[in-house]
């Protein structure tokens, strides 16, 4: 199977997020970006499939900034090709625009299967994988794990519902799958290996078309949820915190 992995950069949620002065976007001046965590799972699942069944893995990403190192990391982990799609897309194109730009490139490639992360932290106007599938006229299944070939022209996947219930579905190739979790934890590429890859490998470049679709909605304002509005915050040294918490739990008869 020849697999395309679609990946994107998202703000690192471990860092503090600040809202821009106009209130309509994040303050991107000091924003730290990272590869979407679900995309790392999609890549791992693809690499596992390649290890077991052969084929190739091609990574495609829209250049929204800081994408080079992420793509070289994908190559260091074992992907065969990496394609950077450049153009006037800005730091945070919507999912519709992203899907349209990626579809333009994916259409020119030879592939059996497209994998991507099930969702991303900023896909307010929809999940890129599904929108990409619609643009390409392909079937799509989201929230999947355990992708396995079923004959030459199909795969079986498990779609995860609530409560640990799953449906096993058979999907004709080519198709687009939104990966929830790889069968094993995503592999790690040491910095030294990524550096080495940067010296030896190269990123292919394509240009995004102009006139990409908008999200169909306009952000009026961003705000942070009211944190601590409800929580009583306990402060002090660890021992003091422990003492107060135990007193509270005892009073509420939660220590059995």
């Amino acid at each position, binding site marked *: 199977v020849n697999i395309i992995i679609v990946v994107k950069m998202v703000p690192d*949620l471990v860092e503090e997020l600040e809202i821009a002065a106009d209130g309509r976007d994040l303050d991107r001046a000091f924003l730290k970006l990272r590869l979407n965590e679900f995309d790392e799972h999609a890549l791992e699942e693809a690499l596992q499939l390649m290890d077991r069944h052969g084929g190739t893995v091609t990574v495609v990403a829209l250049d929204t900034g800081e994408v080079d190192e992420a793509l070289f990391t994908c190559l260091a982990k074992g992907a065969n090709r990496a394609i950077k799609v450049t153009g006037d897309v800005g730091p945070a194109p919507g999912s519709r625009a992203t899907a349209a730009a990626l579809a333009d490139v994916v259409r020119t490639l030879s592939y059996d299967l497209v994998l991507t992360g099930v969702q991303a932290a900023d*896909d307010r106007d929809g*999940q890129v994988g599904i929108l990409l599938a619609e643009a390409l006229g392909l079937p799509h299944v989201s929230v999947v794990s355990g992708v396995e070939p079923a004959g030459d022209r199909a795969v079986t996947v498990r779609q995860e519902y*609530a409560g640990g219930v799953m*449906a096993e579905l058979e999907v004709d190739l080519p198709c687009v799958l939104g990966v929830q979790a790889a069968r094993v*934890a995503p592999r790690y590429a040491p910095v030294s290996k990524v550096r080495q890859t940067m010296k030896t490998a190269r990123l292919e470049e394509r240009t995004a078309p102009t006139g990409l679709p908008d999200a*169909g909605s306009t952000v009026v304002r961003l705000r942070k949820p009211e*944190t601590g509005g409800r929580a009583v*915050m306990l402060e002090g040294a660890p021992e003091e915190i422990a003492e107060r918490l135990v007193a509270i739990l005892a009073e509420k008869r939660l220590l059995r």
Partner: protein
Amino acid sequence: MSRDVYVVVEHLEGKIADITFELLGRARDLARAAGGATVAVVVGHELAGLAGELGAADTVVLCQDAGLARYTPEGHQRALGALLRERAPRVTLVPNTAMGMDLAAGLAAALGWPLVAYCCDVRLDGDRLLATSQIYGGKILAEAEVSGSSAVLSVLAGSFPAEAGRGAGRPAIEPVAAATGPARVRFKRLITPEAGDVDITRAATLVSVGRGIQSKDNIPLVEELAAALGGALAASRPIVDQGWLPKMRQVGKSGLTVKPRLYVAVGISGAPEHLEGMRGAECIVAINTDSNAPIFTVAHYGVTADLFDVLPALTERIKAAR
């Protein structure tokens, strides 16, 4: 274009998912504001019996075909797409669930309508449709004005009270012929989980561990706290995805919904998918280094500190208190 508000009914094994009623309740408010009707759409096979539970709707559209007996994103999207294209409701509400995700984005793309995902609030202000999304792991709420005369909104579980959608009316039942076509996605079987060693949905006390624990080797620290409290160990999704704990320990959207008396969240930031599974706990204690973590929006008691300092002290204290 119509003024109606449509709700896609989610059901599995003949049972309507709770989120459907949450959506129906809000759909009634929206329909009133829009001057239209509330319409529930059931796609499937031999499901006329479900209509009796959908009394909050003015009309229940039954879109049935033997080929739709089992949910597949392709089959159900095709049937819904044909219906919605013809009806063009003002708003279509879809649950933001594993089933709803494919439907919402797929329908919006196929129909060329706007989609706003991860909605936690939806309202009509005159003709303006406003939708608030929880994005960036629940750290940011984005309020957006939706353009166009029809839109698809996918709504997070727990956003609206289900009671408002459990009305006992007598909706008109409207059977329609379902659009069908070649099945490129085929249902094979339903897999129900094997019971784990512990049933976390029955535990009175849960100590739940998240990404903040950093390494599998540190999980015993949390296990010791759970043992001291006489509770069970649970986890957020990343811990299960890493293979550090089994799936049946996972709390949240793709895991289990729990309502213990005490829920201690250790190193869990509180993404919407996690909050969905535990916000009903009686007493929630959260320990996290990030004071802006969304978990503190639902916690009753919060500790902003390094869990590696607090956990051993807390475990020690609890043991001493017995």
